């Protein structure tokens, strides 16, 4: 599969790349079921390269479910199935030849609740490298500095890299998880409500970081915070009851939505 075999570094260098693909991730007629319950209904959407796409909608609308299908995390749950297809760079992630391990290695994910491992800050960041068999100290050192700088955490932790990650503050832990997610230079960064457990100052920092990171990564962010979507996303998708109601440029969604449901949601009339 293309995703796993290409050197990730090539795709993260700016400007020299061919123009951004408008369909970096492409969802085609996608239906998803937990057991008999259908969670997603015929989703069709293209997610552009190196932009931030926000998924909004009330709880249970399927936005996280869709996000978790991009790296096939839903497969940790029993009794799920899907129809339709999801393609990244034109290749189906459900192809027989796709190994889910290598798919996940090329897609970073940040969760709602920060989940640093009970290890040192350093070992947290290099986890993805270690499991890919990289153990050369210079490579690891380079990766730690690059990733922590990328997550705007380097200056705060550079003197205590070998202390436990569990001694960090909540906001620092979440940025550490972002550093860990980008350590192996993935192409896509999935963020599942990354700021919902953070205080406003930490939230601002993570949002700045998201705007910074989109120069290198294709970012999809699930959020309950509509200000956050307006502040840091380029495109916004509104989901309701498992359906994609509206998907457009963020300014348009929030100033002039085409659908009545979208307008009701963003003006706070339900949800």
């Amino acid at each position, binding site marked *: 599969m293309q995703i796993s075999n290409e050197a990730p570094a090539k795709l993260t260098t700016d400007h020299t790349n061919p123009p951004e693909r408008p369909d970096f991730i492409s969802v085609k007629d996608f239906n998803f079921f937990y057991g008999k319950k259908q969670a997603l209904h015929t989703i069709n959407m293209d997610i552009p390269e190196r932009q931030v796409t926000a998924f909004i909608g009330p709880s249970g609308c399927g936005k996280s479910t869709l996000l978790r299908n991009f790296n096939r*995390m839903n497969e*940790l749950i029993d009794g799920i199935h899907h129809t339709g297809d999801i393609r990244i760079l034109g290749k189906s992630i459900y192809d027989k030849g796709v190994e889910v391990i290598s798919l996940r*290695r090329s897609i*970073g994910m940040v969760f709602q609740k920060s989940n640093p*491992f*009970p290890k040192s800050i350093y070992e947290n960041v290099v986890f993805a490298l270690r499991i890919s068999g990289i153990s050369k100290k210079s490579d690891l050192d380079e990766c730690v500095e690059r990733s922590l700088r990328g997550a705007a955490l380097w200056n705060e932790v550079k003197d205590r890299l070998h202390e436990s990650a569990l*001694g960090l503050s909540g906001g620092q832990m979440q940025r550490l998880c972002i550093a860990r997610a980008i350590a*192996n230079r993935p192409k896509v960064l999935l963020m599942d409500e990354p700021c919902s457990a953070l205080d406003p100052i930490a939230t601002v920092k993570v949002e700045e970081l998201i705007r910074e990171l989109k120069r290198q990564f294709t970012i999809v962010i699930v959020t309950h915070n509509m200000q956050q979507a307006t502040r840091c996303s380029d495109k916004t998708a509104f989901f309701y009851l498992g359906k994609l109601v509206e998907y457009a440029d963020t300014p348009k969604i929030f100033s002039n939505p085409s659908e009545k449901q979208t307008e009701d949601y963003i003006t706070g009339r339900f949800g």
Partner: protein
Amino acid sequence: MSAPEKDIISPAGYRPAPDLFRILCQTASLLTVLMLGWIIYEILESAWPSIQKFGFDFMTTSAWVPNRERFGVLPFIIGTVASSLLAILLAFPLGVAIAIFLSENFLSASIRQTMRFVVEMLAAIPSVVYGLWGIFVIIPIVKAFGDWAVGSMGDFPLFSGPAYGNSLLTASVVLAIMILPTITAISRNALASVPKTLREGAYALGSTRWEAIFSVILPTAAPGIVAATILGLGRAMGETMAVAMLIGNSSRLSWSILSPSGTLAGLLANQFGEAQGLQVNSLMYAALILIGITLIVNLLGEAVLRHTQKQTAGIR
């Protein structure tokens, strides 16, 4: 206006008098402490003549000759520690492996539930039954293994011959089976309570199941697994009946795990019935030492547990 306010803060709603529930709880806990104190006092009192006569030498000499009133329990102390450690060595990898198997979704939940029940059933088998089973099943196996080991590795002190059926190894194998449910059940709980977010984090980074288990899940569950091991060790040290039936109850010191040995608990069980005079006092002294060893193991375990907990604190 003032009436309801007064109700909330007035002394009428608050009873300074001791209430029945508190007294009940206090009595129950006090009773436990008193009981422990009483047991230790009684043992200390009946051991006193022996303590006065032998003092510290009791623990460093290896004679046990009741006719000549010469008593020393060094071989039994060593036998107690060695058989328990050997049992842990056998049961720990097996128990943790079973715990991993039962806490991961390798099989459907109903099969895992059944297997869990079966493993925990091992704890329900009486000690004497284990002893009998050991005599008929484990002794011939260990004897055969021993003969082979003496033949091929006899130069190595741990396997020096001759090999006996009633030996340290036999007792340890049966002890390992007896403490397996303890280690498995507590380790399984520790593994199952590793937060889902950590598992997801490991899998999202592209871990295989093996990598997720060994680099994230096991280290996170370490405090619980340590606790399980200590409880198992404590149980192995105090175990009496099965060990007394299998270990050979010898007071001869030997390096070989294929030789008969003895434990403090086994010594007490074997000799107390016919003991008299100073022998009773000496057996009580041995009981005191056994309590002391289990206490030290538990304190050590507590220290290790606190240390590992500190390393993994704040994940949940």
